């Protein structure tokens, strides 16, 4: 299968690989996918105020899955939480020129962003109410 140059670039030089402290109240963690499907993405965000100041990922999956999650972290860093919520998988497909069989990778990346934000909101919501 031929990969686009952008997929290859993210695969060879993935951005923002790593982990943030998942116990921290300012960190939201999203883990999506399943090992038996061949894709698991973990995406984490660190939020200050309403802005995402840091993002990290780790992905078990094909090159397109790694590239989609790497791109996702690149895009959400510096955005507000609300702006990050607006990112659509189709934008990832377009940016990475993903073929139809790899569209699920972009869907997973979008899910990972939303899941990390939901985790953060749940944590910070608890804190405010408490």
């Amino acid at each position: 299968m031929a990969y686009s140059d952008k997929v290859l670039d993210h695969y060879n030089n993935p951005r923002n690989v790593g982990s943030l402290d998942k116990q921290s109240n300012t960190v939201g963690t999203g883990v999506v996918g399943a090992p038996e499907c061949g894709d698991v993405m973990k995406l984490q965000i660190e939020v200050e105020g309403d802005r995402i100041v840091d993002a990290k990922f780790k992905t078990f999956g094909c090159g397109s899955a790694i590239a989609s999650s790497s791109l996702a972290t690149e895009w959400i860093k510096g955005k507000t939480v609300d702006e990050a919520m607006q990112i659509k998988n189709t934008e990832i497909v377009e940016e990475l020129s993903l073929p139809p069989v790899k569209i699920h990778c972009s869907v997973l990346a979008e899910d990972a962003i939303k899941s990390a934000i939901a985790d953060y909101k749940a944590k910070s919501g608890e804190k405010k109410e408490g």
Partner: protein
Amino acid sequence: MQLPIYLDYQATTPVDSRVLDEMLPYFTEKFGNAASRSHAFGWSGEEAVEKARKQIAGLIGASPKEIVITSGSTEGINLAMKGAAEMYGSKGKHIITSLVEHKAVLDTAKHLEKEGFEVTYLTPDRNGRISVEQVREALRDDTILVALIWGNNEIGTLNPIREIGALCHEKNVLFFTDGTQAAGKIPVDVIADNIDLMCLSGHKLYGPKGVGALYVRRRNPRVRLVAQMDGGGHERGMRSGTLNVPGIVGLGAACEIAQQDLEKDAAHTMALRTRFEEKVTKALDHVHINGDIENRLPNCTNISFNYVEGESLIMGVKDLAVSSGSACTSASLEPSHVLRACGVGDELAHSSIRFGFGRKTTEAEVDFAADQMITAVSRLRELSPLYEMVQEGIDIASIDWSGGH
């Protein structure tokens, strides 16, 4: 060292230069149609084909008259299974095969199910092996054919062919084995191994693509097949079509060399495989070798690198020509049906790579390949959330992945 390094010898092999030399005259000056009986061009073609038939028969302990030339193993499988089913369908409608067969066998079996045959698909053990006892239990009064692979193309596991063949003969059931990967790699003797039908393919044993052979036993029992290709009655009526003389010459030469060099080739590839497996398993944790370690083709290994996904791994070793399984199914994203049938979980099946070693593979290439694999696996594990969880002591199997898709 020339890159990329070819380690996909189960998919195909290069034509041996000795084989090519034999073939070349039959494209040009010796171009005759082997079926032309009225002139010297035809006679030389026929002579070449008959020589090749002897060479092919010699490799597997058959007589030349028992060799039907085909275009390769897919055709051999179709002819053997459909031809036998049509010929003996009035005696019974039951066929036994297994879940780890090549797609050509599985799809032919499905075709026969639509034609009214009933097929039992045996589940192998964890190592991909079918036992004689399993076959014995599956046999029925109306069983007409048992079709089992000899050496598995993905994991290299060898089935107990001789014992299963003996059982089939005891029960008067025809026994077909797909010998595509086994022929030229391990000793084959169709008489001692109790085989009635066996296919092989030129390009798997350093011969050309597009040519193969089907062994069809002529006595005890005499096997008859309904032709699947009608025409001029070539190959004793079993396979019409003008003979591919250069290809057949190449297959013959390849079989002769394979027979001569069988032990040398096997020892060479097995030593390389051991070297590769030892290097990789020493450097990396959570590595599992698939297949039956005791009963395996000498030139093949299939390794699961847990917590790393296979496609991304292949992408990371672009200087190696390897595969995550059968070339015939690698267009799909499904994990290997062979590993699934062995009960290897989908997660591990997604993490598996097949390596094949050949006549020309060197120790330096194997060392380079092992280093590349170790580097790529280590790098991807740094990226792997699953490996991280395992390092943290989390049991991945205990996680609810139902959010997955």
